[in-house]
């Protein structure tokens, strides 16, 4: 377990900033406690200082996970966000897309969302923007990584 280097932090922040923009500093600097990012076995964990101190007592090979896993660094040092980060990214997301109940199942199984399935969308969302997809009940959705596309990037906005 170790903290991230400058380079790794930059790559990770660039990825996360695509979805939450400048709200990222609310994740870094929180009023209710010190939270930090730590790297363990190529995975980045977002963990509070208290839990980190406890986790330091576990040897590296026996430690499975700590805090929340935000994502991992691949062999070529690219950062891949994981579904477990959704809880932290969804409240700060800048551009949100709500989809109708009919299209929701289709989306969850990996299909594109048609324009007719779109309920609401944040205004001023430009093309190819990273968004967070919600159901009409304001539940953030995602789907399993499919052919190396990011889980909830709605690149399938057909007919825009």
């Amino acid at each position, binding site marked *: 377990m170790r903290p991230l*280097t400058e380079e790794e932090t*930059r790559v990770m922040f660039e990825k996360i900033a695509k979805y939450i923009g400048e709200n*990222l500093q609310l994740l*870094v600097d929180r009023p209710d406690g010190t939270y930090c990012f730590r790297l363990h076995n190529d995975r980045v964990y977002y963990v509070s200082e208290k839990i980190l101190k406890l986790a330091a007592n576990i040897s590296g090979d026996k430690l499975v996970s700590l805090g929340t896993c935000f994502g991992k660094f691949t062999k070529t040092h690219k950062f891949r966000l994981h579904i477990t980060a959704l809880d932290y990214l969804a409240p700060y997301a800048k551009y949100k897309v709500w989809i109708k109940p009919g299209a929701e199942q289709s989306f969850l199984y990996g299909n594109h969302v048609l324009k007719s399935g779109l309920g609401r969308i944040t205004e001023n969302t430009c093309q190819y923007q990273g968004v967070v997809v919600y159901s009409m009940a304001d539940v953030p959705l995602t789907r399993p990584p499919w052919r190396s596309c990011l889980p909830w990037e709605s690149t399938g906005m057909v007919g825009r």
Partner: protein
Amino acid sequence: MEGQNVEELLAKAERDEAEKLQRITVHKELELEFDLGNLLASDRNPPTELRRAGPSPEAELQALARDNTQLLINQLWQLPTERVEEALVARLPEPTTRLPREKPVPRPRPLTRWQQFARLKGIRPKKKTNLVWDEVSGQWRRRWGYQRARDDTKEWLIEVPGGADPLEDQFAKRIQAKKERVAKNELNRLRNLARAHKMQLPSTAGMHPTGHQSKEELGRAMQVAKVSTASVGRFQERLPKEKAPRGSGKKRKFQPLFGDFAAEKKSQLELLRVMNSKKPQLDVTRATNKQMREEDQEEAAKRRKMSQKGKRKGGRQGAGGQRKGGPPSQGGKRKGGLGGKVNSGPPRLGGKRKGGQHQRGKRRK
């Protein structure tokens, strides 16, 4: 009147004295035992007041501490004083309490090689004098060490021995021999130390030549030997097919696990600030799209107005309507014209030209 004041003052002074005396004197049933050398006072009085006090006896504890400290200080004031550099200082007596050992008893060390040998042979240490008479300098000098009696490196005249090369430097030879002896002694000392602490010497860890060393051990020994030169192996050639050793680069250093959290946060926020500053504030595509949309809306509104007015006044002013129909078509021609060219345009349209907006940005149509 003044007499009364003086009386009052005297009475007050007396009261103050009594109070001070009361504060200084402390009544105890059993006298305290003092060890002034260690600044220690032992109170053997039974703690009845504390037991009576209850769950949080803060006030009683404080009173007890104050009383005992007062008694100790009273004792200190009775010690003989002296003056040291403008400060009055009490000379403490020798401590009487024997403090327990801080560290455990040292375990017996293994004998050094010489000690083992001496024990074997039955050699006892001979008592020798510290100083030896030195004829050369005419004074008593120590037996060994700095300015010793017979230092052969300090001789000014050395005869070349019978069988030696006449061009050899005898003085350098003696200095070299001394250096070698010193190095050998140091090595033996370290070996004895390593044996005592059951440790390995780092330089020879596992590299004593036995007949049965594995390929890895031999390789390691070879690497260490290569690096053990004055230039730390920089100018040692490799064999034709020998590969560079693995893992000989600098080890990467990471920040400690619990570094300074505040500093970490600060550097991350700084990184975010730099990232945000690099992004352009004004998105050119969106700005131009917005501008073009506005223009289109304006023109659409104008066209609607013209057509409405034209319908209302169509009968009376046929020519006028035709005239008013002109500018939109002219506008259309202008748009087409400016799409291709950069600065040319019909000169009569100077007033209504809207600058080069139409050239930049994407035309959504």
